[in-house]
Protein backbone atom coordinates (compact mmCIF):
# COMPACT_ATOMS: atom_id res chain seq x y z
CA UNK A 1 0.00 0.00 0.00
CA UNK A 2 2.84 2.34 -0.76
CA UNK A 3 2.15 5.62 -2.59
CA UNK A 4 4.74 4.71 -5.14
CA UNK A 5 2.73 2.39 -7.33
CA UNK A 6 3.66 2.36 -10.95
CA UNK A 7 1.18 2.47 -13.77
CA UNK A 8 2.66 1.96 -17.21
CA UNK A 9 2.80 5.38 -18.94
CA UNK A 10 0.44 4.25 -21.68
CA UNK A 11 -2.23 3.51 -19.11
CA UNK A 12 -1.94 6.84 -17.30
CA UNK A 13 -3.88 9.77 -18.73
CA UNK A 14 -2.23 12.03 -16.19
CA UNK A 15 0.84 11.44 -14.04
CA UNK A 16 2.95 13.63 -11.85
CA UNK A 17 6.20 12.98 -10.02
CA UNK A 18 7.71 14.85 -7.10
CA UNK A 19 5.23 17.72 -7.36
CA UNK A 20 5.56 20.52 -4.78
CA UNK A 21 3.78 23.78 -4.18
CA UNK A 22 4.17 26.38 -1.47
CA UNK A 23 2.70 29.82 -0.97
CA UNK A 24 5.36 31.91 0.70
CA UNK A 25 6.43 29.90 3.74
CA UNK A 26 3.33 27.73 3.77
CA UNK A 27 3.65 24.35 2.11
CA UNK A 28 0.50 23.24 0.34
CA UNK A 29 2.04 19.87 -0.56
CA UNK A 30 5.48 18.39 -1.13
CA UNK A 31 6.90 15.61 -3.27
CA UNK A 32 3.57 14.29 -4.50
CA UNK A 33 3.40 11.35 -6.91
CA UNK A 34 -0.02 10.87 -8.45
CA UNK A 35 -1.48 9.05 -11.41
CA UNK A 36 -4.87 8.78 -13.00
CA UNK A 37 -5.61 5.82 -15.25
CA UNK A 38 -7.17 6.31 -18.64
CA UNK A 39 -10.90 5.61 -18.63
CA UNK A 40 -11.14 5.36 -14.87
CA UNK A 41 -12.59 7.52 -12.12
CA UNK A 42 -9.73 8.50 -9.85
CA UNK A 43 -10.63 9.96 -6.48
CA UNK A 44 -8.49 12.18 -4.28
CA UNK A 45 -9.55 12.30 -0.65
CA UNK A 46 -8.17 13.97 2.43
CA UNK A 47 -9.08 16.20 5.31
CA UNK A 48 -9.57 19.94 4.95
CA UNK A 49 -6.22 21.54 4.28
CA UNK A 50 -4.59 18.29 3.18
CA UNK A 51 -3.69 19.91 -0.14
CA UNK A 52 -6.23 18.26 -2.48
CA UNK A 53 -7.63 21.41 -4.03
CA UNK A 54 -4.22 23.01 -4.50
CA UNK A 55 -2.93 19.82 -6.14
CA UNK A 56 -5.87 19.83 -8.54
CA UNK A 57 -5.38 23.52 -9.28
CA UNK A 58 -1.78 22.76 -10.23
CA UNK A 59 -2.91 19.94 -12.52
CA UNK A 60 -5.36 22.16 -14.44
CA UNK A 61 -3.09 25.19 -14.75
CA UNK A 62 -4.63 27.52 -12.17
CA UNK A 63 -1.46 27.36 -10.05
CA UNK A 64 2.08 26.64 -11.19
CA UNK A 65 3.88 23.90 -9.21
CA UNK A 66 7.24 24.90 -7.70
CA UNK A 67 8.85 21.57 -8.46
CA UNK A 68 8.22 18.22 -10.09
CA UNK A 69 6.82 17.15 -13.43
CA UNK A 70 3.34 16.67 -14.88
CA UNK A 71 2.69 14.40 -17.83
CA UNK A 72 -0.65 14.49 -19.57
CA UNK A 73 -1.54 11.96 -22.24
CA UNK A 74 2.06 10.81 -22.43
CA UNK A 75 3.58 14.26 -22.94
CA UNK A 76 5.19 16.65 -20.45
CA UNK A 77 2.68 19.39 -19.83
CA UNK A 78 3.32 22.45 -17.76
CA UNK A 79 0.09 24.42 -18.17
CA UNK A 80 0.61 28.15 -17.89
CA UNK A 81 -3.12 28.80 -17.41
CA UNK A 82 -6.51 27.02 -17.41
CA UNK A 83 -6.97 27.87 -21.08
CA UNK A 84 -3.85 25.87 -21.95
CA UNK A 85 -5.12 22.90 -19.98
CA UNK A 86 -8.51 23.17 -21.70
CA UNK A 87 -6.91 23.20 -25.12
CA UNK A 88 -4.89 20.10 -24.23
CA UNK A 89 -8.10 18.30 -23.22
CA UNK A 90 -8.46 18.80 -19.46
CA UNK A 91 -11.80 20.29 -18.48
CA UNK A 92 -12.60 21.45 -14.96
CA UNK A 93 -16.01 21.49 -13.33
CA UNK A 94 -15.51 24.41 -10.98
CA UNK A 95 -16.88 24.28 -7.48
CA UNK A 96 -18.98 27.35 -8.31
CA UNK A 97 -19.93 25.69 -11.64
CA UNK A 98 -19.02 28.79 -13.72
CA UNK A 99 -22.50 29.07 -15.16
CA UNK A 100 -24.06 32.36 -16.28
CA UNK A 101 -27.52 32.58 -14.69
CA UNK A 102 -29.07 34.93 -17.25
CA UNK A 103 -27.97 32.90 -20.26
CA UNK A 104 -29.80 29.86 -21.57
CA UNK A 105 -28.71 26.24 -21.19
CA UNK A 106 -27.53 26.16 -24.80
CA UNK A 107 -25.64 29.44 -24.46
CA UNK A 108 -23.91 28.16 -21.33
CA UNK A 109 -22.96 24.86 -22.96
CA UNK A 110 -21.29 26.73 -25.82
CA UNK A 111 -19.93 29.69 -23.87
CA UNK A 112 -16.68 30.86 -25.46
CA UNK A 113 -16.96 27.97 -27.94
CA UNK A 114 -19.87 29.37 -29.89
CA UNK A 115 -20.65 28.00 -33.33
CA UNK A 116 -20.65 30.76 -35.94
CA UNK A 117 -21.56 31.11 -39.57
CA UNK A 118 -19.38 33.35 -41.70
CA UNK A 119 -21.28 35.85 -43.79
CA UNK A 120 -18.72 37.88 -45.69
CA UNK A 121 -16.51 39.56 -43.10
CA UNK A 122 -19.02 38.92 -40.32
CA UNK A 123 -19.35 35.91 -38.04
CA UNK A 124 -22.90 35.42 -36.83
CA UNK A 125 -23.97 32.93 -34.18
CA UNK A 126 -25.51 29.75 -35.50
CA UNK A 127 -28.09 29.50 -32.74
CA UNK A 128 -30.00 26.68 -34.38
CA UNK A 129 -26.91 24.47 -34.62
CA UNK A 130 -25.97 25.22 -31.02
CA UNK A 131 -29.45 24.34 -29.79
CA UNK A 132 -29.49 21.10 -31.76
CA UNK A 133 -26.04 20.09 -30.55
CA UNK A 134 -26.90 21.12 -27.00
CA UNK A 135 -29.89 18.77 -27.07
CA UNK A 136 -27.64 15.99 -28.37
CA UNK A 137 -25.02 16.62 -25.67
CA UNK A 138 -27.67 16.51 -22.95
CA UNK A 139 -29.42 13.40 -24.22
CA UNK A 140 -26.11 11.57 -24.65
CA UNK A 141 -25.67 11.88 -20.89
CA UNK A 142 -29.42 11.43 -20.20
CA UNK A 143 -29.66 14.87 -18.57
CA UNK A 144 -33.19 16.19 -18.22
CA UNK A 145 -33.87 19.90 -18.52
CA UNK A 146 -37.18 21.40 -19.66
CA UNK A 147 -35.63 23.14 -22.66
CA UNK A 148 -32.20 24.20 -23.90
CA UNK A 149 -33.70 27.69 -24.29
CA UNK A 150 -34.34 27.88 -20.55
CA UNK A 151 -32.35 30.36 -18.49
CA UNK A 152 -29.94 28.54 -16.16
CA UNK A 153 -31.17 30.67 -13.24
CA UNK A 154 -34.41 28.73 -13.18
CA UNK A 155 -32.79 25.29 -12.89
CA UNK A 156 -32.30 23.28 -9.70
CA UNK A 157 -28.89 22.77 -8.08
CA UNK A 158 -28.59 19.25 -9.49
CA UNK A 159 -29.55 20.36 -12.98
CA UNK A 160 -27.00 23.16 -12.83
CA UNK A 161 -24.31 20.69 -11.75
CA UNK A 162 -25.33 18.42 -14.62
CA UNK A 163 -25.10 21.29 -17.14
CA UNK A 164 -21.64 22.18 -15.90
CA UNK A 165 -20.47 18.56 -16.14
CA UNK A 166 -22.08 18.22 -19.56
CA UNK A 167 -20.22 21.30 -20.78
CA UNK A 168 -16.92 19.87 -19.54
CA UNK A 169 -17.54 16.47 -21.10
CA UNK A 170 -19.16 17.74 -24.29
CA UNK A 171 -16.09 19.50 -25.60
CA UNK A 172 -14.40 16.19 -26.30
CA UNK A 173 -12.33 16.41 -23.13
CA UNK A 174 -9.99 13.51 -22.38
CA UNK A 175 -10.03 14.23 -18.67
CA UNK A 176 -12.70 15.92 -16.57
CA UNK A 177 -11.71 17.21 -13.15
CA UNK A 178 -14.47 17.71 -10.57
CA UNK A 179 -14.09 19.44 -7.25
CA UNK A 180 -16.75 18.29 -4.75
CA UNK A 181 -19.47 17.91 -7.39
CA UNK A 182 -22.23 16.95 -4.93
CA UNK A 183 -21.25 19.08 -1.94
CA UNK A 184 -24.33 21.32 -2.15
CA UNK A 185 -26.89 18.77 -3.36
CA UNK A 186 -29.75 16.81 -1.80
CA UNK A 187 -29.99 13.02 -1.76
CA UNK A 188 -31.88 12.58 -5.04
CA UNK A 189 -29.80 15.14 -6.90
CA UNK A 190 -26.59 13.57 -5.58
CA UNK A 191 -27.76 10.22 -6.96
CA UNK A 192 -28.44 11.84 -10.34
CA UNK A 193 -24.99 13.42 -10.51
CA UNK A 194 -23.35 10.14 -9.47
CA UNK A 195 -25.21 8.38 -12.26
CA UNK A 196 -24.00 11.06 -14.63
CA UNK A 197 -20.38 10.51 -13.59
CA UNK A 198 -20.82 6.75 -14.21
CA UNK A 199 -22.17 7.47 -17.69
CA UNK A 200 -19.15 9.66 -18.38
CA UNK A 201 -16.86 6.78 -17.51
CA UNK A 202 -18.88 4.36 -19.64
CA UNK A 203 -18.21 6.71 -22.55
CA UNK A 204 -14.49 6.46 -21.96
CA UNK A 205 -13.89 9.83 -20.33
CA UNK A 206 -11.31 9.82 -17.55
CA UNK A 207 -12.40 11.58 -14.38
CA UNK A 208 -10.55 12.97 -11.38
CA UNK A 209 -12.89 13.48 -8.46
CA UNK A 210 -12.24 15.34 -5.23
CA UNK A 211 -14.62 14.41 -2.47
CA UNK A 212 -15.13 14.39 1.26
CA UNK A 213 -17.69 11.64 1.05
CA UNK A 214 -15.95 8.28 1.53
CA UNK A 215 -19.06 6.25 0.66
CA UNK A 216 -19.47 8.17 -2.54
CA UNK A 217 -15.82 7.71 -3.42
CA UNK A 218 -16.09 3.96 -2.92
CA UNK A 219 -19.26 3.82 -5.01
CA UNK A 220 -17.92 5.88 -7.89
CA UNK A 221 -14.19 5.53 -8.24
CA UNK A 222 -11.79 2.85 -9.38
CA UNK A 223 -8.71 4.10 -7.57
CA UNK A 224 -8.47 6.25 -4.44
CA UNK A 225 -5.52 8.47 -3.51
CA UNK A 226 -5.23 9.75 0.03
CA UNK A 227 -3.60 13.03 1.02
CA UNK A 228 -2.67 14.00 4.53
CA UNK A 229 -0.89 17.19 5.65
CA UNK A 230 0.51 17.98 2.21
CA UNK A 231 1.70 14.49 1.35
CA UNK A 232 0.27 11.72 -0.77
CA UNK A 233 0.20 8.98 1.86
CA UNK A 234 -1.55 6.07 0.22
CA UNK A 235 -3.40 4.75 -2.80
CA UNK A 236 -5.84 1.85 -2.91
CA UNK A 237 -8.18 0.18 -5.37
CA UNK A 238 -11.69 1.19 -4.43
CA UNK A 239 -12.99 -2.36 -4.64
CA UNK A 240 -10.40 -3.58 -2.16
CA UNK A 241 -10.91 -1.08 0.62
CA UNK A 242 -13.41 -0.31 3.35
CA UNK A 243 -14.81 2.90 4.78
CA UNK A 244 -12.93 2.27 8.01
CA UNK A 245 -9.66 1.84 6.21
CA UNK A 246 -10.18 5.13 4.35
CA UNK A 247 -10.96 6.95 7.60
CA UNK A 248 -7.80 5.52 9.12
CA UNK A 249 -5.71 6.59 6.13
CA UNK A 250 -7.12 10.11 6.08
CA UNK A 251 -6.70 10.68 9.79
CA UNK A 252 -3.36 8.92 10.06
CA UNK A 253 -4.59 6.36 12.59
CA UNK A 254 -3.43 3.43 10.47
Amino acid at each position, binding site marked *: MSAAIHIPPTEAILACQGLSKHFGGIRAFTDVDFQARRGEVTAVIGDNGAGKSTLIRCLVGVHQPDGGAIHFDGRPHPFAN*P*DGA*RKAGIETV*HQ*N*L*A*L*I*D*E*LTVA*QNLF*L*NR*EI*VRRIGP*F*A*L*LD*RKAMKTQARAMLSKLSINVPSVGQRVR*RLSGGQRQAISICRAAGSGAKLVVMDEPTAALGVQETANVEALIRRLREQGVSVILISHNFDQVRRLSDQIWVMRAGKMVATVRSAETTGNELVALVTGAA
Partner: protein
Amino acid sequence: MEESRSSLAALLLDPSFWADWASVVGLVGLIILFGVTSPVFLSVANLQALLLAAAILVVLSIGQTFVVATSGIDLSLAASVMLGAVILGLIHAAGLGIFAACVAAVAATSAIGLLNGVLITTGRIPDFVVTLGTLSGITGLGLIISGGEPTMVGSTFLLKLASGKFGPFGYPVWVAIAAVIIAHIALYHTRFGVHLLATGGQAESAAALGIRTNRVKIAAYTISGFCAGIAAILLVARIGSAEPQINTSLLLNSVAAVVLGGVSLFGGRASILGPAIGALMLTALVNGLTLLSVSAFYQPLAVGVIVVLAALIMRYQK
Protein backbone atom coordinates in the same frame (compact mmCIF):
# COMPACT_ATOMS: atom_id res chain seq x y z
CA MET B 1 -60.95 29.76 -27.98
CA GLU B 2 -61.75 29.32 -24.32
CA GLU B 3 -58.21 28.22 -23.70
CA SER B 4 -56.60 31.13 -25.51
CA ARG B 5 -58.74 33.53 -23.50
CA SER B 6 -57.67 32.02 -20.20
CA SER B 7 -54.01 31.99 -21.23
CA LEU B 8 -54.34 35.64 -22.24
CA ALA B 9 -55.82 36.40 -18.83
CA ALA B 10 -52.98 34.50 -17.17
CA LEU B 11 -50.51 36.51 -19.22
CA LEU B 12 -52.12 39.80 -18.20
CA LEU B 13 -52.10 38.75 -14.54
CA ASP B 14 -48.43 37.76 -14.66
CA PRO B 15 -46.31 40.67 -13.37
CA SER B 16 -43.29 39.49 -15.34
CA PHE B 17 -45.21 40.13 -18.56
CA TRP B 18 -45.59 43.79 -17.56
CA ALA B 19 -41.96 43.92 -16.50
CA ASP B 20 -40.71 42.59 -19.84
CA TRP B 21 -42.95 44.88 -21.85
CA ALA B 22 -42.91 47.98 -19.61
CA SER B 23 -41.66 50.33 -22.32
CA VAL B 24 -44.15 49.08 -24.93
CA VAL B 25 -47.06 49.20 -22.49
CA GLY B 26 -45.97 52.68 -21.38
CA LEU B 27 -45.65 53.91 -24.96
CA VAL B 28 -49.05 52.56 -25.96
CA GLY B 29 -50.58 54.01 -22.79
CA LEU B 30 -49.12 57.44 -23.51
CA ILE B 31 -50.24 57.32 -27.15
CA ILE B 32 -53.81 56.56 -26.05
CA LEU B 33 -53.73 59.18 -23.30
CA PHE B 34 -52.34 61.98 -25.46
CA GLY B 35 -54.32 60.86 -28.53
CA VAL B 36 -57.53 61.34 -26.59
CA THR B 37 -56.60 64.55 -24.79
CA SER B 38 -54.81 66.32 -27.62
CA PRO B 39 -56.13 66.02 -31.19
CA VAL B 40 -52.81 67.19 -32.66
CA PHE B 41 -50.78 64.44 -31.01
CA LEU B 42 -51.68 61.70 -33.49
CA SER B 43 -51.28 63.91 -36.56
CA VAL B 44 -48.69 62.71 -39.06
CA ALA B 45 -46.71 65.92 -38.70
CA ASN B 46 -46.49 65.59 -34.94
CA LEU B 47 -45.56 61.90 -35.04
CA GLN B 48 -42.79 62.69 -37.53
CA ALA B 49 -41.54 65.49 -35.29
CA LEU B 50 -41.68 63.14 -32.33
CA LEU B 51 -39.57 60.49 -34.07
CA LEU B 52 -37.11 63.15 -35.19
CA ALA B 53 -36.80 64.43 -31.63
CA ALA B 54 -36.32 60.88 -30.32
CA ALA B 55 -33.49 59.95 -32.71
CA ILE B 56 -30.65 61.35 -30.59
CA LEU B 57 -31.94 59.76 -27.40
CA VAL B 58 -32.40 56.39 -29.12
CA VAL B 59 -28.77 56.40 -30.27
CA LEU B 60 -27.52 57.37 -26.80
CA SER B 61 -29.72 54.76 -25.10
CA ILE B 62 -28.15 52.08 -27.28
CA GLY B 63 -24.69 53.16 -26.14
CA GLN B 64 -25.79 53.19 -22.52
CA THR B 65 -27.36 49.73 -22.97
CA PHE B 66 -24.03 48.14 -23.89
CA VAL B 67 -22.41 49.60 -20.78
CA VAL B 68 -25.27 48.74 -18.44
CA ALA B 69 -25.28 45.17 -19.82
CA THR B 70 -21.78 44.77 -18.34
CA SER B 71 -23.25 46.00 -15.01
CA GLY B 72 -21.53 49.36 -15.48
CA ILE B 73 -22.83 52.85 -16.12
CA ASP B 74 -21.61 55.67 -18.35
CA LEU B 75 -22.26 59.02 -16.67
CA SER B 76 -20.02 60.84 -19.15
CA LEU B 77 -22.35 60.18 -22.08
CA ALA B 78 -23.98 63.62 -22.36
CA ALA B 79 -20.67 65.39 -21.76
CA SER B 80 -19.14 63.31 -24.56
CA VAL B 81 -21.91 64.48 -26.87
CA MET B 82 -21.03 68.07 -25.99
CA LEU B 83 -17.30 67.56 -26.57
CA GLY B 84 -17.98 65.76 -29.84
CA ALA B 85 -20.17 68.67 -30.96
CA VAL B 86 -17.54 71.26 -29.99
CA ILE B 87 -14.79 69.36 -31.81
CA LEU B 88 -17.02 69.01 -34.86
CA GLY B 89 -17.71 72.78 -34.79
CA LEU B 90 -14.09 73.82 -34.34
CA ILE B 91 -12.71 71.52 -37.03
CA HIS B 92 -15.39 72.64 -39.44
CA ALA B 93 -14.66 76.27 -38.58
CA ALA B 94 -10.96 75.61 -39.26
CA GLY B 95 -11.97 74.78 -42.83
CA LEU B 96 -11.08 71.09 -42.80
CA GLY B 97 -14.39 70.04 -44.29
CA ILE B 98 -17.50 68.59 -42.71
CA PHE B 99 -16.58 64.93 -43.16
CA ALA B 100 -13.25 65.35 -41.40
CA ALA B 101 -15.09 67.22 -38.66
CA CYS B 102 -17.65 64.42 -38.21
CA VAL B 103 -14.95 61.73 -38.20
CA ALA B 104 -12.93 63.70 -35.65
CA ALA B 105 -15.98 64.09 -33.42
CA VAL B 106 -16.73 60.37 -33.44
CA ALA B 107 -13.05 59.50 -32.97
CA ALA B 108 -12.81 61.82 -29.97
CA THR B 109 -15.90 60.47 -28.22
CA SER B 110 -14.87 56.87 -28.95
CA ALA B 111 -11.46 57.65 -27.41
CA ILE B 112 -13.22 58.96 -24.30
CA GLY B 113 -15.16 55.70 -24.09
CA LEU B 114 -11.95 53.71 -24.53
CA LEU B 115 -10.32 55.75 -21.76
CA ASN B 116 -13.31 55.11 -19.47
CA GLY B 117 -13.05 51.39 -20.14
CA VAL B 118 -9.30 51.19 -19.56
CA LEU B 119 -9.51 53.16 -16.30
CA ILE B 120 -12.36 50.97 -15.04
CA THR B 121 -10.77 47.63 -15.93
CA THR B 122 -6.99 47.91 -15.73
CA GLY B 123 -7.16 50.88 -13.36
CA ARG B 124 -9.64 48.98 -11.20
CA ILE B 125 -11.61 52.11 -10.36
CA PRO B 126 -15.42 51.84 -9.99
CA ASP B 127 -17.34 52.80 -13.16
CA PHE B 128 -19.29 55.41 -11.25
CA VAL B 129 -16.17 57.28 -10.17
CA VAL B 130 -14.38 57.03 -13.51
CA THR B 131 -17.26 58.27 -15.65
CA LEU B 132 -18.12 60.98 -13.12
CA GLY B 133 -14.49 62.08 -13.40
CA THR B 134 -14.50 62.07 -17.20
CA LEU B 135 -17.87 63.85 -17.12
CA SER B 136 -16.24 66.72 -15.25
CA GLY B 137 -12.96 66.51 -17.18
CA ILE B 138 -14.47 66.68 -20.66
CA THR B 139 -16.93 69.36 -19.59
CA GLY B 140 -13.91 71.49 -18.72
CA LEU B 141 -12.07 70.45 -21.89
CA GLY B 142 -15.07 71.49 -24.00
CA LEU B 143 -15.20 74.89 -22.32
CA ILE B 144 -11.45 75.39 -22.69
CA ILE B 145 -11.16 74.56 -26.39
CA SER B 146 -14.33 76.45 -27.31
CA GLY B 147 -13.64 79.42 -25.04
CA GLY B 148 -17.19 78.90 -23.79
CA GLU B 149 -18.58 80.22 -27.08
CA PRO B 150 -20.91 78.39 -29.46
CA THR B 151 -19.65 77.80 -33.01
CA MET B 152 -22.02 78.14 -35.92
CA VAL B 153 -21.84 75.17 -38.27
CA GLY B 154 -23.20 76.17 -41.67
CA SER B 155 -22.92 72.96 -43.64
CA THR B 156 -25.25 71.84 -46.38
CA PHE B 157 -24.49 68.23 -45.51
CA LEU B 158 -25.67 68.69 -41.94
CA LEU B 159 -28.62 70.78 -43.09
CA LYS B 160 -29.70 67.95 -45.38
CA LEU B 161 -29.12 65.42 -42.63
CA ALA B 162 -31.34 67.37 -40.27
CA SER B 163 -34.16 68.28 -42.63
CA GLY B 164 -33.99 65.73 -45.44
CA LYS B 165 -36.39 62.83 -45.71
CA PHE B 166 -36.38 59.38 -47.17
CA GLY B 167 -39.79 57.78 -47.35
CA PRO B 168 -41.88 58.64 -44.32
CA PHE B 169 -38.96 59.43 -42.02
CA GLY B 170 -36.29 62.11 -41.74
CA TYR B 171 -32.64 61.01 -42.08
CA PRO B 172 -31.96 61.19 -38.31
CA VAL B 173 -34.75 58.65 -37.80
CA TRP B 174 -33.08 56.36 -40.34
CA VAL B 175 -29.76 56.77 -38.55
CA ALA B 176 -31.47 55.69 -35.31
CA ILE B 177 -33.15 52.75 -37.04
CA ALA B 178 -29.82 51.64 -38.50
CA ALA B 179 -28.21 51.93 -35.06
CA VAL B 180 -30.96 49.79 -33.54
CA ILE B 181 -30.56 47.08 -36.19
CA ILE B 182 -26.76 46.97 -36.00
CA ALA B 183 -26.78 46.96 -32.18
CA HIS B 184 -29.45 44.26 -32.08
CA ILE B 185 -27.38 42.01 -34.35
CA ALA B 186 -24.24 42.69 -32.31
CA LEU B 187 -26.00 41.82 -29.05
CA TYR B 188 -27.97 38.76 -30.11
CA HIS B 189 -26.14 37.30 -33.07
CA THR B 190 -22.42 37.60 -32.35
CA ARG B 191 -20.01 35.99 -29.94
CA PHE B 192 -19.26 39.45 -28.62
CA GLY B 193 -22.89 39.87 -27.57
CA VAL B 194 -22.96 36.59 -25.64
CA HIS B 195 -19.63 37.40 -24.00
CA LEU B 196 -20.95 40.86 -23.10
CA LEU B 197 -23.96 39.39 -21.30
CA ALA B 198 -21.80 36.72 -19.66
CA THR B 199 -19.38 39.39 -18.42
CA GLY B 200 -22.24 41.43 -17.05
CA GLY B 201 -23.94 38.42 -15.50
CA GLN B 202 -21.07 36.63 -13.75
CA ALA B 203 -17.70 38.10 -14.66
CA GLU B 204 -15.78 35.52 -12.61
CA SER B 205 -17.45 32.56 -14.30
CA ALA B 206 -16.97 34.15 -17.71
CA ALA B 207 -13.27 34.63 -16.98
CA ALA B 208 -12.98 31.02 -15.77
CA LEU B 209 -14.12 29.92 -19.24
CA GLY B 210 -11.47 32.03 -20.91
CA ILE B 211 -13.57 35.08 -21.83
CA ARG B 212 -11.44 38.18 -21.62
CA THR B 213 -13.86 40.20 -19.53
CA ASN B 214 -11.71 43.33 -19.39
CA ARG B 215 -11.59 43.55 -23.16
CA VAL B 216 -15.34 43.07 -23.35
CA LYS B 217 -15.92 45.90 -20.88
CA ILE B 218 -13.53 48.23 -22.68
CA ALA B 219 -15.35 47.47 -25.93
CA ALA B 220 -18.70 48.28 -24.30
CA TYR B 221 -17.51 51.71 -23.12
CA THR B 222 -15.96 52.39 -26.52
CA ILE B 223 -19.28 51.58 -28.21
CA SER B 224 -20.96 53.97 -25.78
CA GLY B 225 -18.47 56.69 -26.77
CA PHE B 226 -19.02 55.94 -30.46
CA CYS B 227 -22.78 56.37 -30.00
CA ALA B 228 -22.14 59.69 -28.26
CA GLY B 229 -20.23 60.80 -31.38
CA ILE B 230 -23.10 59.87 -33.71
CA ALA B 231 -25.47 61.71 -31.35
CA ALA B 232 -23.17 64.75 -31.44
CA ILE B 233 -23.41 64.89 -35.25
CA LEU B 234 -27.21 64.61 -35.11
CA LEU B 235 -27.32 67.32 -32.42
CA VAL B 236 -25.18 69.81 -34.34
CA ALA B 237 -27.22 69.11 -37.47
CA ARG B 238 -30.42 69.73 -35.53
CA ILE B 239 -29.49 73.03 -33.90
CA GLY B 240 -27.05 74.33 -36.51
CA SER B 241 -24.32 75.13 -34.04
CA ALA B 242 -21.95 73.47 -31.60
CA GLU B 243 -22.51 74.62 -28.06
CA PRO B 244 -20.26 73.89 -25.10
CA GLN B 245 -23.26 73.18 -22.99
CA ILE B 246 -24.33 69.87 -21.55
CA ASN B 247 -27.88 68.69 -21.89
CA THR B 248 -28.10 66.80 -18.59
CA SER B 249 -31.55 65.47 -19.37
CA LEU B 250 -29.93 63.48 -22.22
CA LEU B 251 -27.86 61.54 -19.67
CA LEU B 252 -30.72 60.98 -17.26
CA ASN B 253 -33.08 60.00 -20.06
CA SER B 254 -30.54 57.57 -21.55
CA VAL B 255 -30.39 55.73 -18.23
CA ALA B 256 -34.18 56.03 -17.88
CA ALA B 257 -34.74 54.54 -21.35
CA VAL B 258 -32.45 51.64 -20.49
CA VAL B 259 -34.39 50.94 -17.28
CA LEU B 260 -37.73 51.27 -19.06
CA GLY B 261 -36.42 48.91 -21.73
CA GLY B 262 -36.10 46.08 -19.23
CA VAL B 263 -32.28 46.05 -19.13
CA SER B 264 -31.05 44.84 -15.75
CA LEU B 265 -28.92 47.45 -13.98
CA PHE B 266 -27.06 44.53 -12.41
CA GLY B 267 -25.91 43.47 -15.87
CA GLY B 268 -26.28 40.26 -17.83
CA ARG B 269 -29.66 40.96 -19.27
CA ALA B 270 -30.30 43.39 -22.10
CA SER B 271 -32.18 44.13 -25.29
CA ILE B 272 -31.89 46.89 -27.86
CA LEU B 273 -35.53 47.25 -28.87
CA GLY B 274 -36.57 47.78 -25.23
CA PRO B 275 -34.39 50.84 -24.59
CA ALA B 276 -35.19 52.22 -28.07
CA ILE B 277 -38.90 52.05 -27.28
CA GLY B 278 -38.14 53.46 -23.83
CA ALA B 279 -36.47 56.45 -25.50
CA LEU B 280 -39.52 56.87 -27.78
CA MET B 281 -41.79 56.76 -24.75
CA LEU B 282 -39.84 59.44 -22.87
CA THR B 283 -39.87 61.67 -25.96
CA ALA B 284 -43.61 61.07 -26.40
CA LEU B 285 -44.13 62.08 -22.78
CA VAL B 286 -42.34 65.41 -23.25
CA ASN B 287 -44.07 65.97 -26.60
CA GLY B 288 -47.54 65.25 -25.21
CA LEU B 289 -47.09 67.38 -22.12
CA THR B 290 -45.96 70.25 -24.33
CA LEU B 291 -49.02 69.85 -26.57
CA LEU B 292 -51.22 69.92 -23.48
CA SER B 293 -49.50 73.19 -22.49
CA VAL B 294 -48.22 71.67 -19.28
CA SER B 295 -45.36 73.79 -17.96
CA ALA B 296 -41.92 72.45 -18.91
CA PHE B 297 -41.14 72.43 -15.21
CA TYR B 298 -43.31 69.33 -14.79
CA GLN B 299 -41.42 67.27 -17.37
CA PRO B 300 -38.49 66.17 -15.19
CA LEU B 301 -40.95 65.30 -12.45
CA ALA B 302 -42.99 63.12 -14.81
CA VAL B 303 -39.85 61.40 -16.15
CA GLY B 304 -38.66 60.73 -12.60
CA VAL B 305 -41.95 59.19 -11.51
CA ILE B 306 -42.09 56.96 -14.59
CA VAL B 307 -38.52 55.73 -14.20
CA VAL B 308 -38.96 54.81 -10.54
CA LEU B 309 -42.24 53.07 -11.36
CA ALA B 310 -40.52 51.16 -14.15
CA ALA B 311 -37.71 50.11 -11.83
CA LEU B 312 -40.31 48.86 -9.35
CA ILE B 313 -42.06 46.78 -12.03
CA MET B 314 -38.69 45.37 -13.14
CA ARG B 315 -38.41 43.52 -9.84
CA TYR B 316 -41.01 41.11 -11.18
CA GLN B 317 -38.89 40.12 -14.15
CA LYS B 318 -38.37 36.39 -14.39
